[in-house]
């Protein structure tokens, strides 16, 4: 059984004559500890697909199964619990909370868990150590560079050790050196067993994944990166 499974997933926006199909009847299976990249033109529906896979956007049709659970069959609060337990998110513009310092931002997913305060802090410091920002734990986001903010966002996404990581253009606002650092970090997390689903425009970054899913005209085309490399 696939770890993440999309069955005939579709998403339509608007109604009547103004109805637009963003994603049309996609089937997709992702295995545990797999790293996949979703690529496509702007407006192709890749972010919509990622949102639906991540439990953030209810599909107009079809099902998303994670570990065999139909996540949109869950009640709103149960879905929130599911996201907290199973998923980490890395957003395009870092999306750090500006009035919380680095370690507080990283602790955010733990704020509603039953960990003790000291355990929360230990977990957050450990996550920051992994991304190399332990020494900047008490700075505010606006005191960090773009690359550092992205690494804080990654630390926040992995602090509660969720099995799945969703990343939307994680290097979209970074220079090539910081992009490479972030991609190496994601690859490292994947090698430690984390399932990663990443949306990217960059072919180079996409090739860090095991598989590339290209979204076009509401459908998808899948390519094994290893096979692609062998062919070239």
């Amino acid at each position, binding site marked *: 059984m696939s770890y993440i499974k999309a069955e005939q997933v579709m998403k339509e926006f608007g109604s009547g004559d103004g109805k637009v199909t963003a994603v049309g009847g996609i089937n997709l299976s992702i295995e545990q500890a797999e790293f996949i990249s979703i690529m496509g033109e702007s407006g192709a529906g890749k972010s919509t697909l990622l949102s639906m896979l991540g439990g953030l*956007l209810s599909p107009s049709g079809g099902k998303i199964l994670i570990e065999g659970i139909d996540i949109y069959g869950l009640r709103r609060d149960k879905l*929130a619990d599911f996201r907290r337990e199973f998923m980490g998110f890395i*957003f395009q513009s870092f*999306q750090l909370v500006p009035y919380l310092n680095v370690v507080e931002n990283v602790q*955010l997913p733990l704020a509603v868990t039953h960990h003790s*305060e000291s355990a929360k802090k230990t977990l957050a410091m450990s996550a920051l150590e992994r991304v190399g920002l332990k020494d900047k734990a008490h700075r505010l986001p606006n005191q960090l560079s773009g690359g550092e903010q992205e690494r804080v966002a990654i630390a926040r996404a992995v602090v509660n050790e969720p099995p799945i990581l969703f990343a939307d253009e994680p290097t979209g606002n970074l220079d090539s050196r910081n992009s490479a650092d972030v991609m190496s970090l994601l690859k490292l997390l994947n090698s430690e067993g984390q399932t990663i689903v990443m949306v990217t425009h960059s072919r180079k970054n996409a090739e860090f994944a095991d598989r590339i899913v290209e979204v076009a005209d509401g459908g998808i085309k899948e390519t094994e990166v290893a096979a692609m490399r062998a062919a070239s």
Partner: protein
Amino acid sequence: MKLHNIAINNLRRRKGKVFFLITGLLVGVAAVVALVTTTNILEEDIAHKMDEFGANILITPRSEGLSLTYGGLNLGGLSFDTKEISQADLDKIKTIKNAANVRIVSPKVFGVFENQNQKALVVGVDFPAELSLKKWWKIEGAQPASEDEILVGKDAADRFGFKSGETAEIKGETFKVAGVLEPTGSQDDNLIFMALPRTQKLFGKEGKVGMAEVAALCKNCPISEIVTQISEVIPAGKVTAVQQVVAGRMDTLHNFRKFSLGISGLVLLVGSMVVFVTMMGSVTERTREIGIFSAIGFRSSHIMRIILLEAFVVSLIAGAIGYLCGIGVTRVLLSFLTEHMPHFSLDPLVAGGAVLLSVVIGLLASLYPAMTAAKMDPSEALRTL
């Protein structure tokens, strides 16, 4: 990191907004505190002054007989040779449950003075109590200072030729006319006022009282209860409330309270609208942030708790500062509204009420914005995924 850390940190960061929120609510709370406190103090002041201004309870001997009036008020069965109430009975008034509300007890004994076919009623009074009860009296001359001095009504003075500072002979005894009352337009103009013990002795009524006028502070107690309590301790007396006086006083106080409650309600409504609009704006401004919370697994109730916690902290501060500002405004208002600044101290009950009111209004006004935030779709909120 707990939810309250998020709320507190957000408040620290948005100082301008917090200031605006606190000010909005503070003005409302301060206005309510000022109006309520001022009303209470003025009520006390007015009630005190009104209660001092004439009697509101009459005690007359319990007998069926000749009906007489005194000052336009029914004195029951009083006649000059009827049974009198014992003066010792009046001391029992101090033992009634509402004794603290009884401010003045003014006993009276009556006798007839006759001279050259002219008659006048001599009223024995306790001068300090009587003068305290009849603040409208204006005396030409001085107040009687001893038992040998009398006070004479204007018409009586004219009829008998009594003049202030001269002597007068009553039933063979000589008295000094300490003063003559300026015309009052009442029966007092025809009376001769003499010290109670001397009158009792002169007319052979030692230890007896013909009637008593009582001024009770009845702001917080029904006058009928005091009447019942006095009736119980003076069974020989017929105790009557002067209903029109009591009703008039109570009406004035009630109208004053209604007015201040109306104004308070209006100011609070404006204050709650300020909180509502500001909190709603804050939620809209924080759409992305709320989206992040939702995406990383905060439940709707967690998001609501953050927003309401912020409202709670702001309301708490606004309530406390509002109370202090309200007390300050009260002092200023009272300096304009009263001649002498009445004594008042910080009332923990009003302070607690002000803070509670502020918190309730702050939370109620923030409820809809909090629910809006909680219902926000994470994907719509982030618009990035």
